[in-house]
Protein backbone atom coordinates (compact mmCIF):
# COMPACT_ATOMS: atom_id res chain seq x y z
CA UNK A 1 0.00 0.00 0.00
CA UNK A 2 1.42 3.39 -1.00
CA UNK A 3 1.73 5.87 1.81
CA UNK A 4 -0.52 8.92 1.50
CA UNK A 5 0.01 12.37 3.02
CA UNK A 6 -2.02 15.50 3.62
CA UNK A 7 0.13 18.25 2.11
CA UNK A 8 -2.33 21.12 2.01
CA UNK A 9 -5.50 22.25 3.76
CA UNK A 10 -7.97 25.04 3.11
CA UNK A 11 -11.21 26.09 4.78
CA UNK A 12 -13.80 28.83 4.62
CA UNK A 13 -15.33 30.16 7.80
CA UNK A 14 -18.64 28.40 8.27
CA UNK A 15 -21.63 30.71 8.14
CA UNK A 16 -24.00 32.49 5.80
CA UNK A 17 -22.32 32.79 2.45
CA UNK A 18 -25.01 34.33 0.31
CA UNK A 19 -22.27 35.71 -1.91
CA UNK A 20 -21.14 32.42 -3.36
CA UNK A 21 -22.74 29.42 -5.05
CA UNK A 22 -21.60 25.82 -4.67
CA UNK A 23 -18.86 26.05 -7.28
CA UNK A 24 -17.47 29.39 -6.06
CA UNK A 25 -17.49 28.37 -2.40
CA UNK A 26 -15.76 25.06 -3.12
CA UNK A 27 -13.20 26.93 -5.23
CA UNK A 28 -12.43 29.28 -2.33
CA UNK A 29 -11.39 26.35 -0.11
CA UNK A 30 -9.59 24.63 -2.98
CA UNK A 31 -7.50 27.71 -3.78
CA UNK A 32 -6.38 27.87 -0.15
CA UNK A 33 -5.49 24.19 -0.05
CA UNK A 34 -3.53 24.42 -3.28
CA UNK A 35 -1.66 27.49 -2.05
CA UNK A 36 -0.94 25.68 1.20
CA UNK A 37 0.53 22.84 -0.89
CA UNK A 38 2.86 25.13 -2.84
CA UNK A 39 0.67 25.35 -5.88
CA UNK A 40 0.16 21.60 -6.21
CA UNK A 41 -1.47 20.46 -9.44
CA UNK A 42 -4.18 17.93 -8.62
CA UNK A 43 -4.85 15.14 -11.11
CA UNK A 44 -8.14 14.15 -9.54
CA UNK A 45 -10.88 15.68 -7.40
CA UNK A 46 -13.34 14.05 -5.02
CA UNK A 47 -16.27 16.22 -3.92
CA UNK A 48 -18.16 15.47 -0.71
CA UNK A 49 -21.66 16.90 -0.66
CA UNK A 50 -25.14 15.93 0.53
CA UNK A 51 -27.65 18.53 -0.69
CA UNK A 52 -26.66 19.93 -4.08
CA UNK A 53 -29.28 17.71 -5.66
CA UNK A 54 -32.14 18.32 -3.26
CA UNK A 55 -31.57 22.06 -2.67
CA UNK A 56 -29.89 23.23 -5.90
CA UNK A 57 -30.97 20.77 -8.61
CA UNK A 58 -27.31 20.29 -9.38
CA UNK A 59 -25.78 16.91 -10.17
CA UNK A 60 -22.54 16.29 -12.06
CA UNK A 61 -21.01 18.03 -9.06
CA UNK A 62 -17.49 16.66 -9.48
CA UNK A 63 -17.16 18.22 -12.92
CA UNK A 64 -18.83 21.45 -11.82
CA UNK A 65 -16.46 22.02 -8.92
CA UNK A 66 -13.41 21.04 -10.99
CA UNK A 67 -14.30 23.63 -13.62
CA UNK A 68 -15.07 26.40 -11.13
CA UNK A 69 -11.71 25.79 -9.46
CA UNK A 70 -9.76 26.07 -12.71
CA UNK A 71 -9.18 22.31 -12.86
CA UNK A 72 -11.21 21.47 -15.96
CA UNK A 73 -10.13 18.12 -17.31
CA UNK A 74 -9.06 16.40 -14.09
CA UNK A 75 -10.69 13.15 -12.99
CA UNK A 76 -13.60 13.86 -10.65
CA UNK A 77 -16.58 12.39 -8.90
CA UNK A 78 -18.97 13.23 -6.11
CA UNK A 79 -19.32 11.11 -2.98
CA UNK A 80 -22.52 11.10 -0.95
CA UNK A 81 -22.92 9.61 2.50
CA UNK A 82 -25.42 12.18 3.86
CA UNK A 83 -23.81 14.22 6.68
CA UNK A 84 -20.85 11.84 6.37
CA UNK A 85 -20.15 12.73 2.74
CA UNK A 86 -17.00 14.68 3.57
CA UNK A 87 -15.26 11.93 5.51
CA UNK A 88 -16.15 9.33 2.91
CA UNK A 89 -14.79 11.65 0.22
CA UNK A 90 -11.50 11.75 2.14
CA UNK A 91 -11.34 7.94 2.16
CA UNK A 92 -12.21 7.86 -1.54
CA UNK A 93 -9.45 10.39 -2.25
CA UNK A 94 -7.06 8.39 -0.10
CA UNK A 95 -7.73 5.27 -2.18
CA UNK A 96 -7.13 7.14 -5.44
CA UNK A 97 -3.59 7.94 -4.24
CA UNK A 98 -2.89 4.70 -2.34
CA UNK A 99 -3.91 2.65 -5.38
CA UNK A 100 -1.29 4.37 -7.49
CA UNK A 101 -3.87 5.84 -9.85
CA UNK A 102 -2.89 9.41 -9.06
CA UNK A 103 -0.09 11.14 -7.16
CA UNK A 104 -1.93 14.32 -6.21
CA UNK A 105 -5.63 14.29 -5.36
CA UNK A 106 -7.81 17.10 -4.12
CA UNK A 107 -10.68 16.38 -1.74
CA UNK A 108 -13.24 19.08 -1.12
CA UNK A 109 -16.39 19.08 0.96
CA UNK A 110 -18.94 21.77 0.22
CA UNK A 111 -22.44 22.50 1.44
CA UNK A 112 -24.79 25.44 1.16
CA UNK A 113 -27.71 25.36 3.60
CA UNK A 114 -28.51 29.01 4.37
CA UNK A 115 -30.30 29.94 1.16
CA UNK A 116 -33.54 28.27 2.21
CA UNK A 117 -35.97 28.47 5.14
CA UNK A 118 -35.42 26.01 8.01
CA UNK A 119 -38.38 23.85 6.98
CA UNK A 120 -36.84 23.26 3.55
CA UNK A 121 -33.44 22.45 5.02
CA UNK A 122 -35.11 20.18 7.58
CA UNK A 123 -36.77 18.28 4.73
CA UNK A 124 -33.46 17.96 2.87
CA UNK A 125 -31.65 16.76 6.00
CA UNK A 126 -34.39 14.20 6.57
CA UNK A 127 -33.20 12.51 3.37
CA UNK A 128 -30.58 10.91 5.62
CA UNK A 129 -33.47 8.90 7.09
CA UNK A 130 -35.53 6.12 5.48
CA UNK A 131 -37.74 7.97 3.01
CA UNK A 132 -40.42 5.26 2.92
CA UNK A 133 -40.75 4.63 6.65
CA UNK A 134 -39.46 7.71 8.48
CA UNK A 135 -39.39 10.83 6.30
CA UNK A 136 -42.87 10.03 4.98
CA UNK A 137 -44.28 10.61 8.48
CA UNK A 138 -42.66 14.02 8.75
CA UNK A 139 -40.08 12.74 11.21
CA UNK A 140 -37.06 15.04 11.18
CA UNK A 141 -33.41 14.25 11.62
CA UNK A 142 -33.17 16.02 15.01
CA UNK A 143 -36.14 13.91 16.10
CA UNK A 144 -34.30 10.66 15.37
CA UNK A 145 -31.41 11.85 17.48
CA UNK A 146 -33.78 12.97 20.22
CA UNK A 147 -35.06 9.37 20.47
CA UNK A 148 -31.50 8.28 21.14
CA UNK A 149 -30.81 11.13 23.57
CA UNK A 150 -33.85 10.36 25.73
CA UNK A 151 -32.88 6.68 25.84
CA UNK A 152 -29.25 7.53 26.64
CA UNK A 153 -30.21 9.77 29.54
CA UNK A 154 -32.64 7.25 30.98
CA UNK A 155 -30.41 4.19 30.53
CA UNK A 156 -27.21 5.72 31.83
CA UNK A 157 -28.72 8.13 34.35
CA UNK A 158 -27.33 11.21 32.66
CA UNK A 159 -28.83 14.51 33.72
CA UNK A 160 -29.91 17.29 31.39
CA UNK A 161 -27.35 19.60 33.01
CA UNK A 162 -24.50 17.14 32.60
CA UNK A 163 -25.22 16.76 28.90
CA UNK A 164 -25.29 20.53 28.52
CA UNK A 165 -21.58 20.56 29.30
CA UNK A 166 -20.92 19.37 25.77
CA UNK A 167 -22.26 22.43 23.93
CA UNK A 168 -20.84 24.74 26.59
CA UNK A 169 -17.35 23.43 26.02
CA UNK A 170 -17.78 23.39 22.24
CA UNK A 171 -18.73 27.05 22.23
CA UNK A 172 -15.74 27.82 24.44
CA UNK A 173 -13.44 26.21 21.85
CA UNK A 174 -15.38 27.62 18.92
CA UNK A 175 -15.00 31.16 20.26
CA UNK A 176 -11.26 30.81 19.64
CA UNK A 177 -11.43 29.23 16.18
CA UNK A 178 -11.44 31.83 13.39
CA UNK A 179 -13.18 29.35 11.05
CA UNK A 180 -16.01 28.61 13.49
CA UNK A 181 -19.58 29.65 12.76
CA UNK A 182 -20.54 30.27 16.42
CA UNK A 183 -17.86 32.30 18.15
CA UNK A 184 -19.60 33.09 21.43
CA UNK A 185 -19.67 31.41 24.80
CA UNK A 186 -22.76 29.90 26.37
CA UNK A 187 -23.69 28.59 29.81
CA UNK A 188 -25.44 25.42 30.95
CA UNK A 189 -28.41 27.62 31.65
CA UNK A 190 -28.41 28.90 28.08
CA UNK A 191 -28.51 25.33 26.83
CA UNK A 192 -31.31 24.03 29.03
CA UNK A 193 -33.44 27.10 28.32
CA UNK A 194 -32.86 27.29 24.60
CA UNK A 195 -35.85 26.61 22.34
CA UNK A 196 -36.95 23.00 21.99
CA UNK A 197 -36.42 21.59 18.49
CA UNK A 198 -37.34 17.98 19.15
CA UNK A 199 -37.70 17.36 22.85
CA UNK A 200 -35.33 16.48 24.55
CA UNK A 201 -33.07 18.14 21.90
CA UNK A 202 -32.88 21.89 22.26
CA UNK A 203 -31.43 24.43 19.87
CA UNK A 204 -28.10 24.48 21.69
CA UNK A 205 -27.78 20.69 21.62
CA UNK A 206 -27.88 20.90 17.87
CA UNK A 207 -25.30 21.92 15.31
CA UNK A 208 -26.30 25.06 13.40
CA UNK A 209 -27.25 25.39 9.73
CA UNK A 210 -24.31 26.80 7.80
CA UNK A 211 -22.54 27.16 4.47
CA UNK A 212 -18.96 26.02 4.19
CA UNK A 213 -16.23 24.33 2.22
CA UNK A 214 -13.02 22.62 3.24
CA UNK A 215 -10.33 21.08 1.07
CA UNK A 216 -7.31 18.82 1.36
CA UNK A 217 -4.47 18.08 -1.00
CA UNK A 218 -3.42 14.44 -0.68
CA UNK A 219 -0.16 13.22 -2.18
CA UNK A 220 1.94 10.11 -2.50
CA UNK A 221 5.12 9.87 -0.48
CA UNK A 222 7.70 11.13 -2.97
CA UNK A 223 5.52 13.98 -4.18
CA UNK A 224 4.53 14.93 -0.63
CA UNK A 225 8.06 15.92 0.25
CA UNK A 226 8.12 18.44 -2.56
CA UNK A 227 4.79 19.98 -1.66
CA UNK A 228 5.14 20.34 2.09
CA UNK A 229 7.71 20.62 4.86
CA UNK A 230 5.14 19.26 7.29
CA UNK A 231 3.31 16.45 5.52
CA UNK A 232 0.87 14.57 7.75
CA UNK A 233 0.42 10.90 7.02
CA UNK A 234 -2.97 9.31 6.53
CA UNK A 235 -2.02 6.32 8.64
CA UNK A 236 -5.34 4.54 8.74
CA UNK A 237 -8.83 4.76 7.28
CA UNK A 238 -12.00 2.80 7.92
CA UNK A 239 -15.63 2.89 6.90
CA UNK A 240 -18.68 0.95 8.10
CA UNK A 241 -22.46 0.99 7.95
CA UNK A 242 -25.60 0.37 9.96
CA UNK A 243 -29.25 0.36 8.88
CA UNK A 244 -30.74 3.60 7.59
CA UNK A 245 -33.99 2.92 9.45
CA UNK A 246 -33.78 3.12 13.23
CA UNK A 247 -36.50 0.46 13.59
CA UNK A 248 -34.19 -2.46 12.91
CA UNK A 249 -31.17 -1.22 14.86
CA UNK A 250 -29.84 -3.89 17.19
CA UNK A 251 -29.03 -1.45 19.99
CA UNK A 252 -29.78 2.26 19.79
CA UNK A 253 -27.07 3.11 22.33
CA UNK A 254 -24.34 1.38 20.39
CA UNK A 255 -22.85 2.87 17.24
CA UNK A 256 -21.46 -0.20 15.47
CA UNK A 257 -20.60 1.71 12.30
CA UNK A 258 -18.31 3.95 14.37
CA UNK A 259 -16.86 0.98 16.19
CA UNK A 260 -16.19 -1.05 13.04
CA UNK A 261 -14.78 1.88 11.07
CA UNK A 262 -12.49 2.74 13.97
CA UNK A 263 -11.29 -0.85 14.36
CA UNK A 264 -10.30 -0.92 10.72
CA UNK A 265 -8.53 2.44 10.93
CA UNK A 266 -6.74 1.57 14.18
CA UNK A 267 -5.58 -1.77 12.80
CA UNK A 268 -4.28 -0.18 9.64
CA UNK A 269 -2.45 2.57 11.56
CA UNK A 270 -1.28 0.03 14.16
CA UNK A 271 -2.59 2.12 17.03
CA UNK A 272 -5.14 1.71 19.80
CA UNK A 273 -7.65 4.27 21.11
CA UNK A 274 -5.18 5.06 23.91
CA UNK A 275 -2.66 6.32 21.35
CA UNK A 276 -4.89 9.07 19.97
CA UNK A 277 -3.76 12.53 21.07
CA UNK A 278 -6.37 14.65 19.39
CA UNK A 279 -9.74 13.87 17.84
CA UNK A 280 -12.60 15.51 16.03
CA UNK A 281 -15.86 13.59 16.50
CA UNK A 282 -19.34 13.93 15.02
CA UNK A 283 -21.37 15.96 17.52
CA UNK A 284 -24.21 16.89 15.19
CA UNK A 285 -26.13 16.66 18.46
CA UNK A 286 -24.83 16.42 22.02
CA UNK A 287 -25.71 12.74 22.23
CA UNK A 288 -23.91 11.77 19.00
CA UNK A 289 -20.71 13.32 20.36
CA UNK A 290 -21.00 11.15 23.45
CA UNK A 291 -21.79 7.99 21.47
CA UNK A 292 -18.71 8.67 19.32
CA UNK A 293 -16.41 8.85 22.35
CA UNK A 294 -17.75 5.50 23.53
CA UNK A 295 -17.75 3.70 20.18
CA UNK A 296 -14.25 4.97 19.36
CA UNK A 297 -13.03 3.27 22.53
CA UNK A 298 -12.01 6.45 24.36
CA UNK A 299 -14.33 5.70 27.27
CA UNK A 300 -16.60 2.87 28.37
CA UNK A 301 -20.18 2.56 27.17
CA UNK A 302 -22.53 4.82 29.11
CA UNK A 303 -19.74 6.82 30.74
CA UNK A 304 -18.89 9.51 28.21
CA UNK A 305 -21.42 11.99 29.60
CA UNK A 306 -19.93 11.71 33.10
CA UNK A 307 -16.29 11.88 32.14
CA UNK A 308 -16.91 14.74 29.75
CA UNK A 309 -18.91 16.67 32.36
CA UNK A 310 -16.09 16.03 34.84
CA UNK A 311 -13.73 17.87 32.51
CA UNK A 312 -12.02 15.10 30.57
CA UNK A 313 -11.17 15.37 26.86
CA UNK A 314 -9.88 18.93 27.14
CA UNK A 315 -6.69 20.34 25.61
CA UNK A 316 -3.73 18.20 26.68
CA UNK A 317 -5.93 15.23 27.57
CA UNK A 318 -5.61 12.01 25.65
CA UNK A 319 -7.39 12.53 23.43
CA UNK A 320 -8.39 16.15 23.43
CA UNK A 321 -11.69 16.30 21.60
CA UNK A 322 -13.22 18.80 19.18
CA UNK A 323 -10.90 21.70 19.87
CA UNK A 324 -12.33 23.25 16.69
CA UNK A 325 -15.62 23.66 18.52
CA UNK A 326 -16.98 20.56 16.83
CA UNK A 327 -20.06 20.42 14.65
CA UNK A 328 -21.79 22.32 17.46
CA UNK A 329 -19.75 25.52 17.25
CA UNK A 330 -17.39 25.28 14.27
CA UNK A 331 -20.55 24.43 12.39
CA UNK A 332 -21.89 21.56 10.33
CA UNK A 333 -22.18 22.30 6.62
CA UNK A 334 -23.15 18.68 6.35
CA UNK A 335 -21.29 17.30 3.33
CA UNK A 336 -18.22 19.40 4.13
CA UNK A 337 -17.89 18.55 7.81
CA UNK A 338 -15.75 15.42 7.45
CA UNK A 339 -13.21 17.37 5.41
CA UNK A 340 -13.12 20.19 7.99
CA UNK A 341 -12.36 17.59 10.65
CA UNK A 342 -9.43 16.06 8.80
CA UNK A 343 -8.08 19.50 7.92
CA UNK A 344 -8.27 20.55 11.57
CA UNK A 345 -6.52 17.41 12.80
CA UNK A 346 -3.83 17.83 10.14
CA UNK A 347 -3.26 21.39 11.36
CA UNK A 348 -3.16 20.26 14.99
CA UNK A 349 -0.45 17.77 14.04
CA UNK A 350 1.46 20.40 12.05
CA UNK A 351 1.11 22.76 14.98
CA UNK A 352 -0.55 25.56 13.04
CA UNK A 353 -4.21 25.17 13.99
CA UNK A 354 -5.31 28.75 14.66
CA UNK A 355 -7.64 27.94 17.59
CA UNK A 356 -7.23 25.99 20.82
CA UNK A 357 -4.18 23.76 20.43
CA UNK A 358 -3.76 20.18 21.57
CA UNK A 359 -0.16 20.66 22.67
CA UNK A 360 2.27 18.58 20.62
CA UNK A 361 0.09 15.76 19.37
CA UNK A 362 1.54 13.08 17.14
CA UNK A 363 -1.53 10.96 16.37
CA UNK A 364 -4.97 12.32 15.55
CA UNK A 365 -8.36 10.97 14.50
CA UNK A 366 -11.44 12.25 12.70
CA UNK A 367 -14.81 10.48 12.90
CA UNK A 368 -17.64 11.63 10.66
CA UNK A 369 -20.97 9.98 9.97
CA UNK A 370 -24.09 10.26 7.87
CA UNK A 371 -27.48 9.68 9.49
CA UNK A 372 -27.66 8.51 13.09
CA UNK A 373 -24.27 6.79 12.84
CA UNK A 374 -25.63 5.15 9.69
CA UNK A 375 -22.40 5.25 7.76
CA UNK A 376 -19.16 6.28 9.34
CA UNK A 377 -15.65 7.05 8.20
CA UNK A 378 -12.71 7.18 10.56
CA UNK A 379 -9.37 8.65 9.53
CA UNK A 380 -6.22 8.33 11.62
CA UNK A 381 -3.47 10.86 10.92
CA UNK A 382 0.12 10.76 12.06
CA UNK A 383 2.76 13.49 12.21
Amino acid at each position, binding site marked *: MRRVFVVGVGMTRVGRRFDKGLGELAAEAIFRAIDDARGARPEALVVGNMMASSLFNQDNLGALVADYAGLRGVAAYHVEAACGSGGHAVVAGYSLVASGLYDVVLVVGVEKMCDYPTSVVTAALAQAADAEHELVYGISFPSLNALVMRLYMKTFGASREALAQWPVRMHEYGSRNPYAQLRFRISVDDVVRSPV*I*ADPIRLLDSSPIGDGAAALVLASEDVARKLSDTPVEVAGVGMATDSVDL*SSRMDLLDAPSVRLAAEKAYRMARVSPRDIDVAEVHDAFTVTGLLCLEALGFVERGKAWKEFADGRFGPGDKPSVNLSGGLKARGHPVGATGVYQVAEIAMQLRGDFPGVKAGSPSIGLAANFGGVATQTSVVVLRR
Partner: protein
Amino acid sequence: MKVSPARVWRARGSRYRLEGSRCRDCGFTFYPPKPACPKCGSRNVERVQLPPRGRVVTWAVQYTVPEGFRSRAPIVAAIIELENGVRVLGTIVDVDPSEIRDGMTVEAQLRRVAEDGDEGLIVYGLKFVPAPRG
Protein backbone atom coordinates in the same frame (compact mmCIF):
# COMPACT_ATOMS: atom_id res chain seq x y z
CA MET B 1 -41.73 14.47 -0.77
CA LYS B 2 -42.37 13.25 -4.29
CA VAL B 3 -45.05 10.59 -4.46
CA SER B 4 -46.19 8.29 -7.24
CA PRO B 5 -48.84 5.58 -7.38
CA ALA B 6 -46.18 2.87 -7.85
CA ARG B 7 -44.19 4.12 -4.92
CA VAL B 8 -47.18 4.17 -2.61
CA TRP B 9 -48.33 0.77 -3.85
CA ARG B 10 -44.96 -0.83 -3.19
CA ALA B 11 -45.05 0.19 0.46
CA ARG B 12 -48.59 -1.09 1.05
CA GLY B 13 -47.44 -4.09 3.10
CA SER B 14 -45.21 -2.20 5.47
CA ARG B 15 -47.16 1.04 5.64
CA TYR B 16 -50.79 -0.15 5.59
CA ARG B 17 -50.53 -3.52 7.30
CA LEU B 18 -47.38 -3.40 9.45
CA GLU B 19 -45.67 -6.24 7.64
CA GLY B 20 -42.09 -7.08 8.51
CA SER B 21 -39.68 -9.82 7.52
CA ARG B 22 -38.63 -12.93 9.36
CA CYS B 23 -35.39 -14.78 8.71
CA ARG B 24 -36.00 -18.50 8.32
CA ASP B 25 -32.35 -19.20 9.14
CA CYS B 26 -31.69 -17.29 12.36
CA GLY B 27 -35.25 -16.41 13.34
CA PHE B 28 -34.67 -12.65 13.49
CA THR B 29 -37.83 -10.69 12.77
CA PHE B 30 -37.56 -7.05 11.76
CA TYR B 31 -39.26 -3.98 10.37
CA PRO B 32 -39.31 -2.64 7.67
CA PRO B 33 -39.23 -5.76 5.48
CA LYS B 34 -36.07 -6.33 3.42
CA PRO B 35 -34.87 -8.99 0.99
CA ALA B 36 -32.11 -10.18 3.33
CA CYS B 37 -31.59 -10.62 7.04
CA PRO B 38 -29.73 -7.73 8.73
CA LYS B 39 -28.43 -10.10 11.38
CA CYS B 40 -27.08 -13.09 9.45
CA GLY B 41 -27.26 -11.90 5.84
CA SER B 42 -29.48 -14.79 4.74
CA ARG B 43 -31.82 -14.23 1.78
CA ASN B 44 -34.14 -16.85 3.18
CA VAL B 45 -36.63 -14.36 4.56
CA GLU B 46 -40.44 -14.29 4.54
CA ARG B 47 -43.02 -11.56 4.95
CA VAL B 48 -44.77 -11.66 8.30
CA GLN B 49 -47.62 -9.74 9.84
CA LEU B 50 -46.46 -7.89 12.95
CA PRO B 51 -48.73 -7.41 15.98
CA PRO B 52 -50.32 -3.94 16.03
CA ARG B 53 -49.77 -3.33 19.75
CA GLY B 54 -46.64 -2.38 21.57
CA ARG B 55 -45.00 -0.26 24.23
CA VAL B 56 -43.12 3.01 23.96
CA VAL B 57 -39.35 2.61 24.34
CA THR B 58 -38.34 6.20 23.67
CA TRP B 59 -39.93 9.25 22.08
CA ALA B 60 -39.31 12.76 20.80
CA VAL B 61 -41.64 15.73 20.51
CA GLN B 62 -40.73 17.49 17.34
CA TYR B 63 -41.58 21.17 16.93
CA THR B 64 -39.47 21.97 13.88
CA VAL B 65 -40.98 20.00 11.02
CA PRO B 66 -40.01 19.51 7.39
CA GLU B 67 -41.67 21.57 4.65
CA GLY B 68 -45.15 20.17 4.03
CA PHE B 69 -45.82 19.06 7.61
CA ARG B 70 -46.48 22.43 9.24
CA SER B 71 -50.10 21.63 10.01
CA ARG B 72 -49.09 18.48 11.88
CA ALA B 73 -46.58 20.02 14.31
CA PRO B 74 -45.71 19.02 16.94
CA ILE B 75 -45.04 15.50 15.71
CA VAL B 76 -44.41 12.78 18.30
CA ALA B 77 -41.86 10.27 17.00
CA ALA B 78 -41.33 7.10 18.96
CA ILE B 79 -39.71 3.71 18.99
CA ILE B 80 -42.39 1.15 19.79
CA GLU B 81 -41.54 -2.36 20.90
CA LEU B 82 -44.31 -4.56 19.54
CA GLU B 83 -45.71 -7.50 21.49
CA ASN B 84 -43.35 -9.91 19.70
CA GLY B 85 -40.29 -7.82 20.52
CA VAL B 86 -39.88 -6.24 17.08
CA ARG B 87 -39.18 -2.51 17.18
CA VAL B 88 -40.87 0.00 14.92
CA LEU B 89 -40.18 3.69 14.51
CA GLY B 90 -43.42 5.59 14.08
CA THR B 91 -45.45 8.56 15.20
CA ILE B 92 -47.98 8.73 18.03
CA VAL B 93 -51.14 10.78 17.56
CA ASP B 94 -54.37 11.51 19.44
CA VAL B 95 -52.47 12.25 22.63
CA ASP B 96 -51.09 15.28 24.41
CA PRO B 97 -47.31 14.94 24.06
CA SER B 98 -46.86 15.65 27.76
CA GLU B 99 -48.84 12.50 28.61
CA ILE B 100 -46.53 10.08 26.84
CA ARG B 101 -44.72 7.79 29.24
CA ASP B 102 -42.11 5.07 29.04
CA GLY B 103 -43.77 1.74 28.48
CA MET B 104 -47.10 3.25 27.49
CA THR B 105 -49.16 0.86 25.35
CA VAL B 106 -50.03 2.04 21.85
CA GLU B 107 -51.74 0.53 18.84
CA ALA B 108 -51.31 1.04 15.09
CA GLN B 109 -54.12 2.59 13.05
CA LEU B 110 -54.33 3.53 9.39
CA ARG B 111 -54.25 7.30 8.95
CA ARG B 112 -53.51 9.96 6.38
CA VAL B 113 -49.80 10.77 6.62
CA ALA B 114 -48.82 13.17 3.84
CA GLU B 115 -49.98 14.95 0.72
CA ASP B 116 -48.11 15.64 -2.50
CA GLY B 117 -49.02 19.33 -2.64
CA ASP B 118 -52.61 20.54 -2.96
CA GLU B 119 -53.58 18.38 -5.91
CA GLY B 120 -51.32 15.33 -5.67
CA LEU B 121 -51.68 11.91 -4.14
CA ILE B 122 -52.54 11.41 -0.51
CA VAL B 123 -50.28 9.01 1.34
CA TYR B 124 -51.72 6.76 4.00
CA GLY B 125 -49.83 4.85 6.64
CA LEU B 126 -49.89 3.58 10.18
CA LYS B 127 -49.81 5.87 13.17
CA PHE B 128 -49.88 4.77 16.75
CA VAL B 129 -52.57 5.84 19.21
CA PRO B 130 -52.86 5.15 22.93
CA ALA B 131 -54.35 1.66 23.27
CA PRO B 132 -57.59 1.12 25.11
CA ARG B 133 -57.02 -0.78 28.36
CA GLY B 134 -57.65 -4.49 28.54
